[in-house]
């Protein structure tokens, strides 16, 4: 059948128009130069688009993100804010989404990252934020370690929004009370922790468990989180050697032995749950304790639980005086269309109003020392915020959440830890992990051991 000429003309016109529309009809504003930061931040009528990629997709995390988003929209009402959720906790889903865009020069105005090695991965594509740090006085407002990890070479590339503590064990008060066991209130050694686990195991009814792992449904990093916390609790020197790439298999053996012991108290179907579902087991009285970061507080708060009433927390064994540092932040790529909006975004969430509202909702503490403690509803958050600002606190940067080791070490570590959780072969895992760590390229020199 002959195709009418009219149809040909229509097809060609449609293709041509589509090609033309694929280019923006109006040119975005030219990227701001470094001297413009004051004008950029004070341009409260600025329009244009703002795409922000983030991984805060589980209910309470999204609530926290929405607080920051609303803060931005209140300050700069004319911009078109487009949040782009990228599922995959601890930022594991971000690289496949963002890296091709960065390479193609089609970056969003901002995306979520962790400082340290994770942000350093993207350094080539990021805009320096030295002018913003200076304008917002962030160096004076945050701690030395946070400053240090937000910097790559001479440039700040990330602005922190909230800080979490990694080395916590959360417990279900009802299960402790019904077992007649008093939860620890102070520092706890590993021997004391195992004794506690044994006592719970003997007293908990059938179908209820002492601990959970939450490393299922694609969140294998939850197991790495437990591994790093045990390592920090046993020996900070081992931890320091690990993140400097010099740890030996012999140093890792006791860590893995204790991890193996930990796994004895975890139900056999732990792979059926991610970290949020493991929190759900604690919430529904299926498990007595869960070793995880303090973002779980937001999960419990969203379900009506109060810290100190239905649940509590104590520092993981051996980590008294230590603070497992997890810092969330956002970066601004060089080649975004509306870089000014990206800069206004990272500025907006450092403001007093947003920080006061964001952190209690998210379950984090502010990285900024001018946010008062009375914004936090419970003792845990107040003490955590105080620890963060205390110069005598021993900080160790998290491995699992992108700060302390290069990405190519981290993403080989996750499956290796996952394999160890299955086969419990301490010697083989110690050798393999030491080899993985030794293969990395380390550009940050850590000094955390006392």
């Amino acid at each position, binding site marked *: 059948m002959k195709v009418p000429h009219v149809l040909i003309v229509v097809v060609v016109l449609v293709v041509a128009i589509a090609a033309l529309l694929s280019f923006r009809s109006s040119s975005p504003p030219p990227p701001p130069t470094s001297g413009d930061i004051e004008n950029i931040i004070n341009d409260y009528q600025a329009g244009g688009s703002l795409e922000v990629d983030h991984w805060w997709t589980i209910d309470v995390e999204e609530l926290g993100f929405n607080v920051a988003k609303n803060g931005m929209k209140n300050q700069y009402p004319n911009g078109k804010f487009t949040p782009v959720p990228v599922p995959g906790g601890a930022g594991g889903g971000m690289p496949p989404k963002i890296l091709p865009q960065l390479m193609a020069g089609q970056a969003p105005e901002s995306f979520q990252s962790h400082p340290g090695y994770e942000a350093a991965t993207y350094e080539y594509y990021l805009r320096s934020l030295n002018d913003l740090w200076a304008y917002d006085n962030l160096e004076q407002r945050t701690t030395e370690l946070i400053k240090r990890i937000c910097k790559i070479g001479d440039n700040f590339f990330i602005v922190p929004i909230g800080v979490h503590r990694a080395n916590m064990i959360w417990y279900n008060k009802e299960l402790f009370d019904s077992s007649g066991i008093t939860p620890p209130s102070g520092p706890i050694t590993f021997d004391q922790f195992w004794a506690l686990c044994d006592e719970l195991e003997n007293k908990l009814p059938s179908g209820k468990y002492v601990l959970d792992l939450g490393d*299922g449904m694609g969140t294998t990093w939850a197991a790495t989180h437990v591994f790093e916390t045990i390592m920090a609790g046993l020996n900070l020197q081992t931890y320091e050697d690990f993140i400097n790439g010099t740890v030996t298999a012999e140093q890792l053996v006791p860590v893995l032995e204790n991890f193996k012991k930990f796994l004895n108290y975890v139900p056999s179907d732990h792979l*059926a749950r991610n970290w949020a579902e493991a929190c759900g087991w604690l919430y529904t009285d299926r498990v007595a304790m869960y070793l995880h970061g303090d973002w779980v507080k937001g999960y419990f708060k969203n379900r009506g639980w109060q810290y100190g009433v239905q649940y509590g927390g104590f520092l993981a064994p051996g980590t008294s005086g230590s603070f497992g540092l997890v810092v969330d932040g956002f970066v601004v790529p060089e080649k975004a269309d509306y870089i000014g909006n990206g800069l206004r975004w990272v500025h907006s969430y450092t403001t007093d109003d947003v920080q006061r509202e964001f952190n209690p909702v998210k379950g984090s503490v502010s990285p900024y020392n001018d946010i008062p403690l009375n914004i936090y509803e419970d003792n845990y958050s107040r003490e955590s915020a105080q620890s963060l600002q205390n110069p005598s606190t021993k900080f160790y940067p998290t491995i699992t959440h992108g700060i302390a080791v290069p990405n190519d070490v981290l993403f080989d570590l996750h499956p290796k830890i996952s394999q160890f959780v*299955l086969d419990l072969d301490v010697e083989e895992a110690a050798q393999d992990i030491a080899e993985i760590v030794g293969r990395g390229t380390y550009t940050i020199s850590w000094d955390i051991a006392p």
Partner: protein
Amino acid sequence: MRKPTLIFLRNPTLLIFLILFILMLYFVYGMIAWNIRASFTDWNTAVPSSNFVGFANYSEVFQDSLFWQSLKNTLLLFLVIPCSLGLGLFLAILLNQKVRGARIFMIIYLMPFAFSLVVTGKVWAWMFAPDNGAVNTILRSIGLDRLAGGWYTDTSTVMLSIIIAMVWQFSGYCMLMLLAGMKSIPQKEIDAAKSKGASTFRIYRGVVLPRLKIPILTSVVVVMIFVLKAAFDLIRPWTGGGPGTSSYTLPIMVVNEAYAKTHVAYGAAVANILVAVVLCIIIPYVYWSYRGR
């Protein structure tokens, strides 16, 4: 020689095909060529690099035990194709009978094909949950406790769990293609076979199945495409490649290497090997299917 414009005016469809061909040349074959080129470079950070290193990346891939495990799992996934075809054929034969409500059953069988792979993974994670999932609950209730295992939390059954989920999702499509093929067979051929005393089995074997060669070929190609898609989209959010690395597939390895670890050239090498494996399967099959036409 006729002017090109006259050729297009006399055969306007050529113009449409030319546009599509150019787009495909760039976005499909051009990108494959780019990927092949990248695999021969030292581009193993986020910063692009184009120094030629020969076959170094391929040599490293072939020495990587994770690659062989991922390859084995990816090839295992291809079992989804004959299983989906088999179940699809069975369903098509059932629906080809004149039964009431056949159309409704067809919609029910086809519906899983419309699901997102992530949703399928979540649904089957619940179904296979070791503690209280539907599958284990049913098995225990009928006295088959021995079979109520860890499923996707167990290294020995994780790939089986994934294959079952994929067959559930893709067999509806095969059913649709094969049913359409059956309905296109002239009734008089079936009647002629019946009049010669052929049994139902011999009618399907001698008359129906030979006429289903093209729908089967189409189903094989389409299901293979979806299997390769599911090898990442279904598995990554469901098992993450675990337990351990027992459900790692080549697509998961490509994403992990190229994006998470920014070993772009290494990931490109793995991707090219995957393409080669697929071509080694599909080209002989297509050739065999079209031979003698």
